[in-house]
């Protein structure tokens, strides 16, 4: 009787051990916390499935993703994914983005974990989910607010300037020298060469350069100094011709305008550089303006201009080319000075007002940097986190 009782206890304990062990193994292999959501801030073209990262002892080497469309049978999506394919280091979760979906259907997912020995464990099926296109990207709210704030500062400053109050603008030597350069060319009886760089008309630096050209053209119209503009972009060529023509008309000197002085060379970078260099050597212009977007040709142009002894005024927003211009040119407009040039030369209150708004923006960023550094030093990092989350 006693022997039977012991045998019964052993059987019960063994069954319990095997059952709990099996349960433990299944629990560790099957993906847990599987959630499917409509991918946030997208055009409704994907659903994101997340689940917990497996324990190192689980023996899982990969996952299969199964999906069901509108409650139909589950089918496998693509090939088996390795752990490296799915583990997201930022969130420390496993993640899969299904981009093969339609916004009209609902989807349910099962994640299959595959172990080294080839065992497969299914997760629970997720809730049904459908994708929707978002109208506003919530991750860009800080960027949107910053843009509104900065735009408001600029518009406010423009309207402040309209009231007639004088706006102080610091002296920019490169722009002060524009009259000097034009005067020099006039006295020497030589031409002025204006190079707009390689930017297209959609490039803001090219537009800024065109506005400077407009101001230069007004002065050359007065002095009857030849203004030569070799262009690299066909659209820029046509816009520049219209601009310069209008400047001459505005100055009452349409007769002095010569359309042949504004011409197309080529769209090829180095062929353009060769063409402009050739013009410099042959025509020996007294003043050269290099304003706009430049790449590797910047120094080729600036050094050739330097070698012929022309007064050179450069300006670019390509920060990699600035050292070359500073080394080879007489005056250089650094970065933002290029954008301030039209306001500086035209002296229009509304344009000058926008410069003040720009300074408010810089002050705000500077304050944010100082505050961020102080907070980081004291162990508070919400500004850093906020900026890192801007997508």
């Amino acid at each position, binding site marked *: 009787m006693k022997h039977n009782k012991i045998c019964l206890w052993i059987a019960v304990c063994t069954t319990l051990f095997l059952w709990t062990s099996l349960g433990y193994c299944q629990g560790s292999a099957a993906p847990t916390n599987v959630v499917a959501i409509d991918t946030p801030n997208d055009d409704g073209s994907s659903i994101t499935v997340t689940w917990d990262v497996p324990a190192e002892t689980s023996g899982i080497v990969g996952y299969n993703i199964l999906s069901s469309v509108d409650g139909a049978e589950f089918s496998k999506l693509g090939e088996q994914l390795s752990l490296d394919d799915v583990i997201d280091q930022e969130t420390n979760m496993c993640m899969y983005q299904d981009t093969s979906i339609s916004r009209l259907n609902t989807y349910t997912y099962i994640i299959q974990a595959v172990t080294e020995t080839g065992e497969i464990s299914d997760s629970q099926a997720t809730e049904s989910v459908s994708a929707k296109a978002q109208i506003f990207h919530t991750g860009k709210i800080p960027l949107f607010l910053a843009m509104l704030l900065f735009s408001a500062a600029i518009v406010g400053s423009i309207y402040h300037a309209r009231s007639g109050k004088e706006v102080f603008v610091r002296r920019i030597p490169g722009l002060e020298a524009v009259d000097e350069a034009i005067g020099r060319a006039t006295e020497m009886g030589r031409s002025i060469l204006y190079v707009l760089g390689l930017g297209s008309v959609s490039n803001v630096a090219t537009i800024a350069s065109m506005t400077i050209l407009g101001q230069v053209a007004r002065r050359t119209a007065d002095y009857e100094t030849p203004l030569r503009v070799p262009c690299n972009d066909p659209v820029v060529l046509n816009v520049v011709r219209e601009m310069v023509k209008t400047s001459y008309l505005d100055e009452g000197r349409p007769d002095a305008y010569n359309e042949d002085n504004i011409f197309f060379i080529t769209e090829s970078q180095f062929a353009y550089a060769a063409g402009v260099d050739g013009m410099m050597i042959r025509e020996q212009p007294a003043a050269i303006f290099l304003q706009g977007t430049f790449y590797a040709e910047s120094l080729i142009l600036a050094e050739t201009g330097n070698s012929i002894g022309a007064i050179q005024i450069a300006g670019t927003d390509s920060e990699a080319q600035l050292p070359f211009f500073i080394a080879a040119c007489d005056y250089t407009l650094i970065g933002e000075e290029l954008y301030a040039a039209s306001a500086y030369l035209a002296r*229009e209150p509304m344009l000058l007002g926008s410069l003040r708004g720009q300074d408010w923006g810089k002050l705000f960023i500077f304050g944010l940097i100082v505050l961020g550094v102080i907070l980081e030093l004291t162990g508070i990092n919400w500004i850093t986190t906020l900026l890192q989350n801007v997508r």
Partner: protein
Amino acid sequence: MKRQIPLALCFLFGIVMIITQFSPHPVSKSIYERVISGALIIGPFALVLATITLIQTHINRIQRRTEHWGYSFVVFAGLITMVAIGVPFGPENPIFVWLYRNVQVPMDATMFSLLAFFIASAAYRAFRARSTEATLLLVTALIVMLGNVPVGDLIWNSLLSLTGLDSIISQNGPSSARGWILDNPNLSARRGIILGVSLGVISQSIRIILGIERSYLGGGD
């Protein structure tokens, strides 16, 4: 009216294109792509006009017998040859590809290689130690140049071992100093310029969208 319609269009498209940057909706994406495609269509038409001006310029040069006018024939020879092969047979044609690879690419490379000599002459002028700033620039440039080549560290380490200072002063000084210069003062200055440029671009864009800056339309009024 000639000015008002372009200004209104500029305002409308400027605002719409800003909105598309903050909306991932397919309608927003579609508008963005359509506007960009529309802008691309203008390109080929403008290219025809540009080619006509190029031809006119060189015809004038030949007619007026200006200096080096003979080279204008080279321009026409190149233009006619590439058009005569490229238009009927396409850009994959072996002769077209051969001309591109064996004429245009080497000529581009030649121009690009001139940069090395221009850098040397510009550096010579920039690094002449005539002022405190120029001296500082010269010293910094020397450190960066030495740090960029393995022989810089070799010279440094050899000097340290010769003088017995290798136990006090760290090895590979030039490359470490170069890294520090590029990652700290240089990067800070670059980011400062980039911030200024970005604000300048936004400011200029607002002026254009609001129609305050309209000189690109021809004239300032």
